[in-house]
């Protein structure tokens, strides 16, 4: 019994008792016990992952646990990284969730919700530990089902939840079908379904089959990670889920799409050819730009965060794709750096996105509003939540000293140095990828300035926002844990250098450690670049203190007089005159008019007596998801058309059905005769 096995056993046991507690206990203590057990699941996952990141591995096989295939588990540093991230997010979100559901009111405190939450948490921790196709698919599907149930928790409150649930259910199961096909094909050709057998047998596959396996698996994993164009479920399901579930989905579940791509692409299939990784990189760059563009225009706070998840996972895929390209181009050191940057971005994104979603959940709980146009003024009412959201936004905008900057900087370093890798593809693709990352970083700044500025600053724009109160202490504690993690990731990323090197090595991509740490700085081993975030943060703090002191001194010397605001004689400005999320994003919407194709409509109603007098002007502005509009709507219409045509076959006459049977048998016999 080593740490990992103990921790995994604790995690499984915690999940089962948590589910039982959620089902059996009375409402008063249900959320406490189930929440505490969920936190135990997360802590155990964190411990197992951290232990694996120190270089330990553990594997086990339980042949009798499931019929036919049994259960195989193996934890190495790559699994450990994703387990640790999921575990850490689960701990913080579980603590937050106890506060969120306290008092036992609301659908999130109900029996089903509280029973499913620990199970979902456990699958998040356990999916990376699976080491056979059947175990992986089982846990993957369990994760999809439990998260689907949790998305549907508030279905009685809003009808949009149901439609989001249907989208999610259909897309995640289409993904499962692709994954099942891909992995089954792989297992059949490689002669075994354990990951060891797949790894050993990968060279038996022809390049075409390997490519097919990769494409099928990558499509499924990209859909789980919300990559364009398979993202349509994400901006629906993440906002409609209860906030702690959104945080878990956006910060832990989507990561497993990356894990799957790295595990199958690099480890099991052995990195393959150049076009695979070109596909990954282009998909990633497209989702990064498209996701953040939609986030910039979103007025729903949680939808904005969900689209930002598309963006960040896109950036991670850019890193993964670049790693594969460099590997195929014969530069293992750079490949390791790109993969390390991608994995570090997974960690950073999990930190700030979980914090963002939990803070958005606090706002939602306090005001009942997700629409930024109707929020505002929350800094005064909810100072702790506002500053925590500000920290999350700092991480998301990828500017120093936020934590998102560290990994995006590493990613850019790897792409820029990657121009040394020979080949026309890299010469064309890498500069474009750098441009895409730069564009998405700029748009991310706009999106999060909007979220923070319009949502939390200025004056309240609705009675709900006026009446907001600060969240309970447990919610703040949960968010505080995440904030501490974000701050640590931002200030001392050097401690992650060795674990990242081990995770990269576990992906079998390269043995060269890409980074060297030290508590104070992060240095690239391959090139001369280094980043010392602690000094940067110290310089920033010192300059802020100096500026503050200077302003105070200047203010003391000057004569000041309090006067009424000059309102042009027209009366005090009202909150309606302030910037809203829509008006803030309007210039950007104009710039990207051709890409986004927004729908605007001005409806003027005249007074009955005269057309020169206007009674009411109604302005509507919608920014539909264009990919969804262009790709999914025709596809759905086609399916509906085929379905309604097929219905004509079932006319209700028994004679016709008997005829179908006869024709079917004859056709089958005919086919068999030809084939024999």
């Amino acid at each position: 019994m080593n740490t990992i096995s103990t921790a995994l056993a604790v995690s499984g046991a915690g999940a089962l008792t948590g589910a039982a507690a959620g089902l059996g206990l009375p409402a008063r203590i249900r959320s406490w016990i189930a929440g505490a057990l969920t936190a135990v699941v997360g802590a155990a996952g964190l411990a197992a992952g951290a232990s694996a990141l120190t270089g330990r591995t553990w594997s086990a096989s339980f042949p009798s646990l499931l019929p036919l295939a049994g259960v195989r588990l193996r934890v190495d540093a790559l699994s450990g990284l994703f387990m640790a991230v999921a575990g850490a997010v689960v701990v913080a979100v579980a603590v937050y969730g106890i506060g969120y559901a306290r008092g036992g009111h609301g659908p999130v405190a109900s029996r089903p919700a509280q029973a499913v939450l620990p199970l979902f948490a456990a699958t998040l921790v356990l999916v990376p530990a699976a080491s056979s196709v059947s175990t992986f698919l089982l846990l993957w599907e369990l994760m999809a089902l439990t998260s689907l149930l949790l998305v549907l928790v508030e279905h009685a409150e809003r009808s949009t939840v149901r439609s989001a649930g249907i989208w999610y259910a259909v897309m995640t199961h289409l993904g499962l079908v692709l994954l099942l096909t891909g992995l089954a094909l792989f297992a059949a050709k490689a002669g075994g379904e354990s990951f060891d057998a797949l790894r050993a047998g990968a060279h038996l596959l022809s390049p075409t089959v390997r490519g097919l396996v990769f494409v099928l698996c990558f499509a499924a994993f990209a859909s789980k990670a919300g990559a364009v164009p398979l993202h349509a479920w994400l901006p629906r399901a993440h906002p409609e889920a209860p906030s702690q579930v959104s945080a878990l989905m956006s910060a832990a579940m989507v990561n497993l799409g990356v894990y799957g791509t790295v595990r199958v692409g690099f480890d099991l299939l052995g990195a393959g050819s150049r076009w695979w990784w070109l596909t990954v990189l282009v998909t990633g760059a497209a989702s990064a730009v498209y996701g953040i563009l939609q986030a910039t225009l979103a007025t729903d706070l949680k939808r904005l965060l969900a689209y930002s998840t598309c963006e960040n996972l896109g950036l991670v895929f850019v890193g993964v794709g670049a790693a594969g390209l460099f590997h195929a181009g014969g530069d293992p050191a750079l490949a390791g750096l790109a993969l390390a940057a991608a994995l570090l971005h997974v960690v950073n994104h999990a930190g700030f996105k979980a914090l963002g979603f939990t803070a958005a959940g606090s706002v939602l709980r306090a005001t009942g509003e997700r629409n930024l146009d109707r929020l505002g003024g929350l800094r005064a009412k909810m100072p702790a939540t506002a500053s925590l959201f500000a920290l999350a936004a700092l991480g998301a905008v990828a500017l120093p000293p936020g934590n998102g900057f560290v990994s995006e900087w590493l990613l850019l370093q790897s792409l820029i140095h990657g121009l040394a890798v020979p080949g026309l593809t890299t010469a064309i693709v890498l500069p474009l990828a750098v441009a895409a990352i730069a564009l998405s970083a700029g748009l991310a700044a706009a999106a999060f300035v909007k979220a923070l500025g319009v949502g939390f600053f200025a004056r309240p724009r609705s009675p709900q926002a006026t009446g907001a109160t600060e969240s309970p202490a447990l919610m703040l504690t949960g968010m505080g844990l995440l904030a501490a993690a974000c701050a640590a990731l931002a200030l001392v990323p050097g401690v992650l250098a060795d674990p990242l090197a081990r995770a990269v090595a576990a992906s079998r991509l390269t043995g060269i450690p890409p980074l060297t740490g030290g508590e104070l700085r992060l240095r690239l081993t391959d090139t001369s670049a280094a980043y010392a975030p602690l000094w940067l943060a110290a310089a920033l703090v010192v300059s802020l203190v100096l500026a503050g002191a200077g302003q105070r001194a200047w203010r003391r010397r000057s004569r000041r007089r309090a006067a009424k605001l000059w309102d042009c004689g027209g009366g005090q400005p009202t909150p309606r005159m302030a910037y809203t999320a829509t008006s803030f994003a309007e210039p950007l919407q104009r710039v990207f008019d051709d890409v986004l194709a927004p729908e605007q409509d001005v409806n003027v109603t005249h007074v009955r007596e005269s057309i020169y007098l206007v009674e009411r002007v109604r302005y509507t502005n919608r920014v539909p998801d264009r990919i969804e509009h262009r790709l999914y709507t025709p596809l759905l219409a086609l399916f509906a058309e085929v379905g309604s045509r097929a219905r004509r076959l079932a006319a209700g006459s028994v004679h016709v059905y008997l005829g179908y049977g006869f024709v079917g048998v004859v056709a089958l016999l005919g086919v068999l005769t030809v084939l024999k």
Partner: protein
Amino acid sequence: MGLLRKIRDTGRVAEPAPPPPGGEMPAAARELGGSAQVRCVDAGSCNGCEIEIGMAFNPVYDAERYGARLVASPRHADVLLVTGPVTRNMAAPLKATVAAAAEPRLVVAVGDCALGCGEFTGGYGLASETGAVEDLVRVDVRIPGCPPEPAAIIAGLRQVTGR
């Protein structure tokens, strides 16, 4: 180049400055030191006075050479040039505008209406019986006329700037 040539050919069109008006300077005007930033306030005028004020600042009359300059906000202004009979709707904005200008400030009432003896005296909708600016705020300089000629407006402003 056409514009530059035009400027050179036209030369200076300003009329020669008349002798400075006598009369005593208001106390607040002395603190301004010969430079007055002027904000126009239309408190209900028929726009006749506004046209004349516009003329006073054109190149021919050139009020700026005497130290008066139009500004866009009472926050920038030392002098408020109020025109028109004060209507009910403009009474509160007028007071707010005067309050918004920094001390020391002066109010110059331009035109007969602003002095309470114009066409609209006693009319419906005035803030007071005569609509005089004086009924609402303290007035330092008075410029009569319906409308006052640019020269008269400049004479009033020169009382403030003292130049």
